[in-house]
């Protein structure tokens, strides 16, 4: 066809003369498109939100807590307690290769008092690097504990956001003095609110964080409750854990293959597992969407078969006048593709509108913000294109194969 304009005019006329049929056809495609795009967008939203909440615990860190041996080693019985102190952490820092960051953590429940309010609070003594590793970002106007705090054993405290609201009310906590375990502490920062769906010693929003040196001086505690570390890249964590076990086993005399001596929680595994799970979940959603879209495509194909039948005589006349088979094929194929494209565009627009409506609505808390990413739009468009092509191809081929003499007599 050399004249795309006249093709479009004719198409518009055909579609308009069969309004109900056109509507039903396009509706099937819209429905299918919304199914594919929306399912994928919601899947993506859930994935992003969940990944963010996982990161609330820490950015792909390994958490280790000294425990008891379960294997005899070099003549020593099992069931010995493994105790780790600050010098062991320094030893690991020196000796273990590929250790991007490590921080000890000491925990206790201590009494905190501000004004007339008293609370029993989970307090952790940690290193400055702990803040980055555990995604504890200070809200504007504050800071996390720093190396000088550590070195000088300053009595400074970083407060969880919900605890801050509870204890300080409307007062800005930064710069305030709070009594902790009977000593005055200066609040240097408040946690910026974050999603966190897992923890090991209470939620960060209800904790107080102080320098580990201060913690030891304040409570007299010597042994760490746990320590956290990470490799430069998440995929290095597994090998790093082996090296940590080997180094610590040699120093503390336990079997490096003893899985009980140190409790290990590699949060990377959770990310890997979740990514795999989400991939499967998205494949499932996508598959359901594609099925729905295919049903829509079958509808379009049926309609096009009817159209070909209705227009058999027209096709015969055109062929008699010299239209080649592929001209006829092209006309019907193009017509189907245009129908599919119209339905697809409306479907994508609806999906986009839905995503925009969910963002900022209460539903967002439950499923996250659906994301109609370019990838999803492209994928949907490709599936649409394929469905449209297949839906149009067979009716169009039937049309192209008509015998002009027979077709004109109908």
């Amino acid at each position, binding site marked *: 066809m050399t004249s795309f304009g006249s093709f479009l005019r004719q198409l518009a*006329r055909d579609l308009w003369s069969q309004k109900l049929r056109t509507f039903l056809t396009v509706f099937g495609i819209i429905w299918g498109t919304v199914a594919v795009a929306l399912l994928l967008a919601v899947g993506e939203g859930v994935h992003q939100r969940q990944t963010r909440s996982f990161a609330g615990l820490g950015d792909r860190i390994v958490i280790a807590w000294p425990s008891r041996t379960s294997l005899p080693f070099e003549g020593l019985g099992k069931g010995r307690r493994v105790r780790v102190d600050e010098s062991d952490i320094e030893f690991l820092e020196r000796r273990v290769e590929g250790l991007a960051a490590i921080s000890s953590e000491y925990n206790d429940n201590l009494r905190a008092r501000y004004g007339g309010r008293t609370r029993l609070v989970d307090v952790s003594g940690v290193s400055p690097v702990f803040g980055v590793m555990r995604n504890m970002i200070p809200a504007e106007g504050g800071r996390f504990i720093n190396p000088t705090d550590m070195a000088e054993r300053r009595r400074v405290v970083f407060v969880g956001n919900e605890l801050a609201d509870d204890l300080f009310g409307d007062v800005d906590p930064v710069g305030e003095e709070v009594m902790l375990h009977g000593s005055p502490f200066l609040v240097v920062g408040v946690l910026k609110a974050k999603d966190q769906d897992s923890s090991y010693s209470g939620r960060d929003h209800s904790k107080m964080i102080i320098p580990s040196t201060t913690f030891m001086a304040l409570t007299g505690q010597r042994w760490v409750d746990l320590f956290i570390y990470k490799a430069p890249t998440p995929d290095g964590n597994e090998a790093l854990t082996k090296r940590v076990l080997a180094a610590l086993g040699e120093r503390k005399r336990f079997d490096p293959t003893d899985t009980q001596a140190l409790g290990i929680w590699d949060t990377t595994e959770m990310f890997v597992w979740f990514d795999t799970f989400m991939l499967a979940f998205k494949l499932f959603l996508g598959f359901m969407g594609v099925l729905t879209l295919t049903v829509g495509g079958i509808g379009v194909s049926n309609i096009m078969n009817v159209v070909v039948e209705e227009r058999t005589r027209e096709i015969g006349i055109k062929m008699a006048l010299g239209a080649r088979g592929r001209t006829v094929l092209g006309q019907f194929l193009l017509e189907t593709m245009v129908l599919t494209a119209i339905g697809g565009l409306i479907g994508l627009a609806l999906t986009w509108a839905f995503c925009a409506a969910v963002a900022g609505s209460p539903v967002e808390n439950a499923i996250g913000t659906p994301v109609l990413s370019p990838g999803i739009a492209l994928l949907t468009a490709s599936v649409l294109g394929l469905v449209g092509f297949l839906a149009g191809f067979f009716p169009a081929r039937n049309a192209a194969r008509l015998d002009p003499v027979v077709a004109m007599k109908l």
Partner: protein
Amino acid sequence: MNWPLTKKHNGEAGGNGHIIEMVGITKVYDTGKIKVEALRGIDLVVDPGEFVAIVGPSGSGKSTLLNLVGCLDTPTDGSYHLGGEAVAGLDRDALADVRNRRVGFVFQNFNLLPQLTALENVEMPLLFGGVGRRERRRRALDQLARVGLADRVEHRPTELSGGQMQRVAIARALAMEPDIVLADEPTGNLDTGSGSDVMSLLTELWGQGRTLVVVTHDKGLARRAGRVVEIRDGLVVTDELAVA
């Protein structure tokens, strides 16, 4: 294959100058159990500028013959040269091109596309022939003017009388300046007045040097032709020049 887009209606026939040269043409419709021999060995030669009327009773095979002449259908056996080109063995697309460039059809029931205007109907073969938009429009308007419908170009077939519809169909048949115009009962669906208009128009085309082959029951129309071929039971029984 590449034919010139325009050519003189009466020139350029094959090596021996015939427009149609059919030898031993047969057509058998095989519907599984029953075989129907519609044509049983037709020899037909038509030269440029002839006006041939094909007559014969219903079922004699004259419409089948016209379909073969117009390359709408292919013979079971025999050789056929149209404008010097062997067309018996061509595939569907090549036949479509031959129809587009060498043949103009006029049908009993007009076969106009109802959703298109007269102008768009006439433009259609030019569209399939790959003629550009402006040229297409110019040539279609020109043909419509020649059949006396210059004031009806934007009308749709339903807004035209039977005689006007057949004139649109004739304009469409001439749009590509074909070697030959084929008409199948062109006056069959028309009242006497319109029928005689169409007859006059066809005769006028002959007068301009065009080659026409017309299948008709209409004795009046057959009488106007320069040559009458009578078909009976799939064979040519008489082939004579009309007495002027």
